[in-house]
């Protein structure tokens, strides 16, 4: 613990503006979904969020570079980022929990298995299976085919696993003072991340246009897009953060022993990667 050098910013307009920007985004989303109007408000809100966040982080970077932060502040950032990632873990845990509950309990029960066999009376002809190709009620059309895990998803798994390795190499390069090597590995990480997103986009296109796997295709389509969609959104955010880190690396913001911004980005990327491994196993393969 340090003696009295803890930096307390005097006041800032970014937090309250962030709140307003997020509010604008939420209101835009609501107005669009409910009243089917003013869809542009969503874009305006999103742009406002990105702008204000960029300006907020600019202040933080400036303060950091002018030496206002001591080791204790560094620990605050570490605790903050660590607990933030924990909250993200719990967010995905809810979705995985839902997936397991559906697969292990809900779908078999609809077929009359176990203590809740009475629910089989709802749709007597229903046969439980996973992936659920034929939802209980004929009003819901199931998928015709499922996504083959050993094609695009396997490629994507390779992309993300390798990207975690290249990011670690970039970090090692940074710590050893090899900035060129760090930069090259970071560029490679970002390229792999973008490749992942492109492949995911192709996979979604295929799912919608050829396989009949859609959001509306019963519980299989719903869980598939919920889990992969939120993961994809996180990869997008992670890749954006890494691009910012590349820019900061080029500007010479990082030193071999003072680069928590980079480390935080790396933590986030590894977290997204681990989630993917879970997805690959339980959404695609098993």
């Amino acid at each position, binding site marked *: 613990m340090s003696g009295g050098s*803890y930096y307390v910013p005097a006041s800032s307009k970014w937090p309250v503006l962030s709140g307003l920007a997020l509010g604008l985004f*939420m209101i835009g989303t609501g107005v669009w979904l409910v009243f089917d109007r003013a869809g542009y408000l969503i874009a305006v809100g999103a742009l406002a969020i990105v702008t204000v966040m960029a300006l907020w982080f600019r202040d933080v970077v400036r303060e950091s570079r002018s030496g206002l932060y001591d080791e204790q502040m560094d620990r605050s950032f570490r605790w903050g980022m660590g607990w933030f990632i924990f909250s993200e873990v719990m967010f995905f845990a809810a979705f995985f*929990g839902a997936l397991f509950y559906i697969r292990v309990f809900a779908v078999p029960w609809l077929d009359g298995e176990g203590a809740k066999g009475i629910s089989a009376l709802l749709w007597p002809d229903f046969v439980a299976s996973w992936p659920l190709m034929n939802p*209980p009620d004929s009003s819901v059309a199931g998928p015709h085919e499922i996504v083959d895990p050993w094609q695009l998803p396997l490629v994507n798994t390779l992309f993300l696993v390798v990207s975690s390795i290249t990011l670690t190499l970039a970090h090692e390069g940074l710590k050893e003072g090899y900035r060129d090597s760090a930069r090259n590995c970071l560029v490679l990480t970002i390229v792999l991340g973008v490749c992942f997103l492109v492949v995911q986009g192709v996979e979604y296109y295929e799912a919608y246009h050829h396989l009949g796997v859609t959001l509306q295709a019963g519980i299989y389509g719903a869980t598939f897009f919920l889990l992969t969609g939120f993961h994809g959104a996180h990869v997008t955010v992670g890749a954006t953060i890494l691009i910012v880190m590349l820019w900061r690396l080029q500007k010479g913001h990082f030193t071999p022993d003072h680069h928590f911004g980079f480390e935080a980005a790396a933590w986030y990327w590894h977290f997204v990667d681990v989630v993917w491994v879970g997805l690959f196993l339980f959404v695609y393969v098993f």
Partner: protein
Amino acid sequence: MAPKHPPKARLEHSENVAGGAAADVHEAHHPSGPLRWLLTTNHKEIGTLYLVFSLTMFLIGGVMALVVRLELFQPGLQLVRPEFFNQMTTMHGLIMVFGAVMPGFVGLANWMVPLQIGAPDMALPRLNNFSFWLLPVAFLLLLSTLLMPGGGPNFGWTFYAPLSTTYSPPSTTFFILSLHMAGISSILGAINIIATILNLRAPGMRLMDMTLFVWTWLITAFLLIAVMPVLAGVITMMLLDINFGTSFFNAAGGGDPVLFQHLFWFFGHPEVYIMILPAFGIISVIVPTFARKPLFGYASMVYATASIAILSFLVWAHHMFSVGLPLIAELFFMYTTMLIAVPTGVKVFNWITTLFRGSITFETPMLFALAFIVLFTIGGFSGLMLAIAPADFQYHDTYFVVAHFHYVLVPGAVFSIMAAVYYWLPKWTGHYPDERIGRWHFWLSVIGVNLLFFPMHFAGLAGMPRRIPDYALQFADFNMASSIGGFLFGLSQLLFVWVVIKCIRGGVPAPAKAWDGATDLEWSVPSPAPLHTFETPPDLRRVAS
């Protein structure tokens, strides 16, 4: 593992230490007027904002409860349409839980955690401001749903699917988005509190030297970070079911409405402890002060809090006994729920033992704390009754449940916040709150709250269902008593508003150590606490000699 240097040892020594009246170097740059409150990064100002917001929401949610009680004063439909009645019960619950109780505790944490651990501010001051200002935006959005076509949320604060998806008003999407914002606020606020407690304690303050208020908030913040994302997940699935045709909670597509309940209560049960653990902390600070004895069983209090937090993840389905769980699940959740009575009993035992042979005085904060111990325990006992799965089949969805959770939340959580406000007002304003009005407020509240909620036990055991605007004639007397109690309790809160405003404007000046039995670190800084405190942390290592 008892602390070698109990918290009591701190105050006498730390007065010598630089900290309290440190020069306000930042004050010169501080904006004035409304901008000061919009842009502030100061934990005391943000704490004040939270507390004012919480009080405002408490009054708005309270008025909604009075609409409910007025309609229920007599059987039959007199005052409001049933659809509006449903919106009032729903909004009352949502506002009280997410708008009044949670921000109230966060406000207290903002004010007092840095003062009790000798920190200059919260660990991430700008994030702190962001966490607060999300709340007014979120709740304006939530309140605006009442004016939308089809009205606001009308499915109860637990918003069970498919009532909240297939059969809900169009405004539900706005309700989901506002709850997302409140959730983000809670998560970021909790991250800030954990980082502050783990990283900004004064040199020499070990974890087992912290006050119980700080301890309970550390554990509460962990619960918040663990379960608010689950709430975000489940309301996202609702959003998709409503707007994008997914089948998460729709059995026709292979989903399950019961899945909603599992996810909701996996969040919801830790959530009810989020609303009571900081209350335990407050009571554990106030009782020793006015009993003039150190807290009995400090370490066991810490372990009991941690045990309650761990168990809170293993009991969620006791809210769902009558939904048709497999027998093994009924048994598992029944026993884990009953197990919670053990650490809770430890706490009640320790408070009473702290009182035993103490030199007790009965100032307003102590009155509220003592009422908390008695009345919260009543709520705990009715919770034990509800935990018995076969008996719960009878109690489920009756007014007995309403009586139970209002006993733990009103004379429980809300009384503890009031106790805390009376206890710390001298530190915040530099004046003692008016003791005479405070006592009137206390006694009217205690009488009102019991008249309001005690008859609900009987109405519920006799079979009166909850969330119904009309009822059978045999419940008329109980309901009339409840309504009279409701108005007595509601109107006496105006005394609370009066006493707080009066205290801000003036009163008997309070010294740094406002209560003579107080020992914690916050009483070493002047009253009112200057804007910046502990800019140089007090070195408690000197104490440990």
